[in-house]
């Protein structure tokens, strides 16, 4: 139900290790159809990565002396620092706010409990621009600061620079912390409280309970959320480039675009995947401890009352929890709202309506396909208890770790090759040209986003599956249902919250996606994200302000639906 667990590489199929071993000892189901299907889907999903690997291997390695001497050391340190800061930022904001929500009662708590998810709807590249403007010399913060102290020029005083690694970390943390907040809040709600009450009856003080009991219990959930935030940090190009932070991803693009070596860029990108595997490995290691806790969580019936914060502490808590919302949502909406106010006519433009329609269609189609694929793959892993299927399914989600533009390029090669091969086949045998079918089509964009965000859906549903008691559907099977029937009639309804989470995350990320979409789209096809970019003539995002606000609003609706649905679901189980 937390829905935000990242997948990891090694075997783990949702049943406890003991049960799995027992099952293997008894029988070894084969399901050749499922197995073949799963491997086929994975192969297709991996095609862009394979085509990039092909590009990388066709390179000569002539870029490396320069890269090793002048680029990679600095870029690695910057990337590492950025990752550490984002990890600290997202985990502290996410965990603290989740804890406040669960443990205390203060004014506007219910409103804030969903408002905290809002920054999820803001694309990082727009947030970076908004932050840079907001904290710029002519922005409201510094103007106010100068008016208090009577400064005239930027040389009269010191002000921290948002265009720095730390600034970039602040921007990314502000829009990515909801991943941690979502995962952690549910663990605190479902698992933490009863253990916490036991600790408290044994005489532990609240602070001690938090640090010694709740935090360790929530650790796998925190790591899962942070891992997601870190993946987004690694594949980010927009925010880093705009803020002048030279990460490894920036090095990939500069090697490709400034030095004309796509091979070199692909080589760096693939080596970065190793870094991602390290993150995934850490997450898997953290999650391997979680299985013990999850089994017991569902039995919790009591709903312990929150501590009511009295006097000034109530409003203070409200203020503290409002801060992250103001940062990640308030600043971007304020900045782009101001620009949009001066361009109200843009809201009426037919292009914007068209882009909105395209975005909703692309994002919802992608969400449906991605969720269906994830369900199919997970069901295959569950039923075909074979390590090769489990590993392939995990591999299928690595597309998420690549920068969107690079993944898009890998897919571009594949689609164009497919189209041209089909075309020449049809010309030869049917005397009919099919031209470019998928390349430069909306379908191409859906394929790109499906591949890119399969990891999100797969991870969400997998963690939902892991929360269910191990052999639930076997009861149905013992009553005569087939494996498929029992999965559909027993597991699917129970997985509804996880499936909804998966669909919403994929929808929102597809709506925000820019790099792959802009590369693969057809003539006259704009999504909101590309519309912002196109209208921002000469790197002036002001002119895309209306579309920027509509992106945020479009992503907002499903985020709110999710937030409400999770709340309802919880009331029902508690």
């Amino acid at each position, binding site marked *: 139900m937390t829905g935000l667990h990242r997948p990891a590489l090694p075997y783990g199929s949702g049943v406890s290790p003991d049960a799995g071993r027992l099952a293997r000892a008894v029988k070894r189901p084969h399901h050749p159809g499922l197995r073949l299907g799963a491997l086929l889907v994975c192969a297709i999903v991996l095609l862009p990565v394979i085509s990039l690997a092909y590009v990388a291997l066709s390179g000569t390695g002539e870029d490396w002396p*320069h890269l090793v*001497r*002048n680029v990679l050391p*600095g870029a690695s340190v910057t990337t590492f620092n950025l990752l550490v800061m984002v990890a600290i930022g997202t985990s502290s904001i996410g965990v603290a706010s989740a804890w406040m929500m669960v443990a205390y009662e203060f004014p506007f708590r219910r409103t804030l409990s969903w408002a905290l998810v809002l920054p999820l709807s803001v694309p990082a590249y727009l947030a970076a621009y908004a932050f*840079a403007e907001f904290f*710029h*010399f*002519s922005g409201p913060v510094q103007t106010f600061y100068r008016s208090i102290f009577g400064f005239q*020029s*930027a*040389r009269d005083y010191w002000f921290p620079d948002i*265009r720095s690694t730390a600034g970039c970390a602040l921007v990314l943390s502000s829009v990515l912390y909801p991943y941690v907040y979502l995962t952690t809040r549910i663990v605190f709600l479902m698992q933490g409280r009863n253990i916490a009450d036991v600790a408290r009856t044994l005489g532990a003080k609240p602070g001690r309970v938090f640090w010694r009991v709740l935090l360790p219990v929530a650790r796998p959930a925190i790591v899962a959320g942070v891992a997601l935030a870190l993946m987004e940090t690694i594949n980010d190009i927009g925010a880093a480039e*705009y803020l*002048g932070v*030279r990460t490894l991803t920036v090095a990939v*693009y*500069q090697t*490709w675009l*400034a*030095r*004309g070596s796509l091979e070199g860029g692909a080589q760096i990108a693939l080596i970065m995947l190793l870094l991602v595997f390290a993150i995934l490995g850490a997450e898997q290691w953290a999650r391997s401890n979680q299985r013990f806790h999850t089994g017991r969580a569902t039995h919790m019936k009591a709903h312990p009352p929150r501590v009511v914060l009295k006097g000034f502490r109530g409003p203070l808590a409200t203020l503290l929890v409002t801060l992250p919302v103001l940062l990640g949502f308030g600043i971007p909406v304020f900045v782009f709202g101001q*620009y949009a106010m001066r*361009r109200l006519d843009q809201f009426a433009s037919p292009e914007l309506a068209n882009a909105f329609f395209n975005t909703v269609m692309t994002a919802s189609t992608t969400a449906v396909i991605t969720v269906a694929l994830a369900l199919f793959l997970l069901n295959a892993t569950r039923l075909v208890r074979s390590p090769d299927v489990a590993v392939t399914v995990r591999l299928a989600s690595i597309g998420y770790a690549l920068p969107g533009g690079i993944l*898009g*390029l890998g897919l*571009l*090669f594949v689609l*164009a090759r497919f*189209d*041209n091969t089909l*075309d020449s086949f049809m010309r030869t045998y*049917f005397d*009919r040209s*099919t*031209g*470019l*079918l*998928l*390349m*430069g*089509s*909306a*379908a191409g964009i859906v394929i790109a986003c499906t591949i890119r965000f399969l990891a999100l859906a797969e991870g969400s549903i997998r963690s939902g599956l892991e929360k269910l008691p191990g052999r639930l559907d076997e009861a149905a099977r013992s009553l005569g249902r087939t494996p498929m029937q029992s999965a559909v009639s027993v597991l699917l309804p129970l997985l509804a919250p996880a499936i909804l989470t998966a669909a919403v995350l994929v929808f929102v990320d597809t709506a925000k996606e820019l*790099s792959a979409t*802009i*590369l693969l*789209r*057809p*003539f*006259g096809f704009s999504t909101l994200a590309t519309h912002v*970019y*196109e*209208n*921002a*003539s*000469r*790197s*002036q995002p*002001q*002119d895309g302000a209306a579309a920027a606000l509509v992106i945020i609003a479009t992503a907002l609706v499903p985020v709110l639906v999710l937030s409400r649905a999770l709340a309802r679901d919880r009331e029902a189980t508690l």
Partner: protein
Amino acid sequence: MNTIRNSAAAAFAAASLFGGTAYADGVVNIYTYRQPALIQPVLDAFTADTGIKTEVLFLDKGLEERVQSEGTNSPVDVIMTVDISRLTKAKEAGITQALVDDVVNAEIPAEYRDPEGHWFGLTKRARVVYASKDRVKDTAITYADLADPKWKGKICIRSGQHDYNLALFSAAIEHWGPEKTEEWMKGLKANLAKKPDGGDRPQAGAIFAGECDIALGNTYYVGLMRTNEKEPQEKEWGNAINVIFPTFENGKTHVNISGAALAKNAPNRDNAVKLLQFLASDKAQQIYAEKNYEYPVEPGLEPSAEVKSFGELNADTLSLSEVASHRKEASEMVDRVGLDDGPSS
């Protein structure tokens, strides 16, 4: 059997519509690195003149790779882009075809087009110094002066890896040779006020804010800032600076171009040629000059009044292809010197 084949054909037809590829008569398909808003006025004038519609696809990277992969099925007729190295790269990638057209060649001087006709420059922009009106009394600054310690802590630039800076550094390599250019770049780095970031306009903003005294930027941004009715702040930035035309030892200023090329497999070749002829015409050149504050490539055409107020541009006559050939060298130099790390490291 027949039914199956027919329905398969129908499915493919639907898919092609889905693909949205425009092959219809009276159309010219454009892939562009230039934002549609910038070229739309010219394209509208073209449609008004010829009745030929334009389909525009804006890409921010990977245009060359896309056209290459699409191969003979590619719908693109005309490729439009800024920066000389992107034009030469398109030629190298084999996605353009030679066009020897008297109408086009009569309008565009030889130094602003490929000798074999694979690309054509349409507008020029100079890379100049933005100087604070309040704090800079100098009226002439050379490119070499930017490394003079007298500017220590006073210069702002955007990333050294950006196309416009790489082209300038490539021109410097062509003028001075790599060793001298690298020494100069170290001096420039030492003079920076802060780490390079943002676009050209924010550099003017930094001068307005007092963070630096001079900056490098393209000419048209000054026109755009000074006439920006939507964002009063940009007017302040534009009015806080003077434009100084820096020169190399030959007394000339570095210019870059925006341009267009005829795609190798252009399905609507005749329309594409008409578009290129139109883009080279006085009419199109003047629209560019007036709306975008760029310099026409055609000699004898005037820039806009705003641009004229900057002073006289004496454009460098270096071969642009030669300049573009130093791009990789320039990019590696930027990394080696650590220009983008800013002054401190």
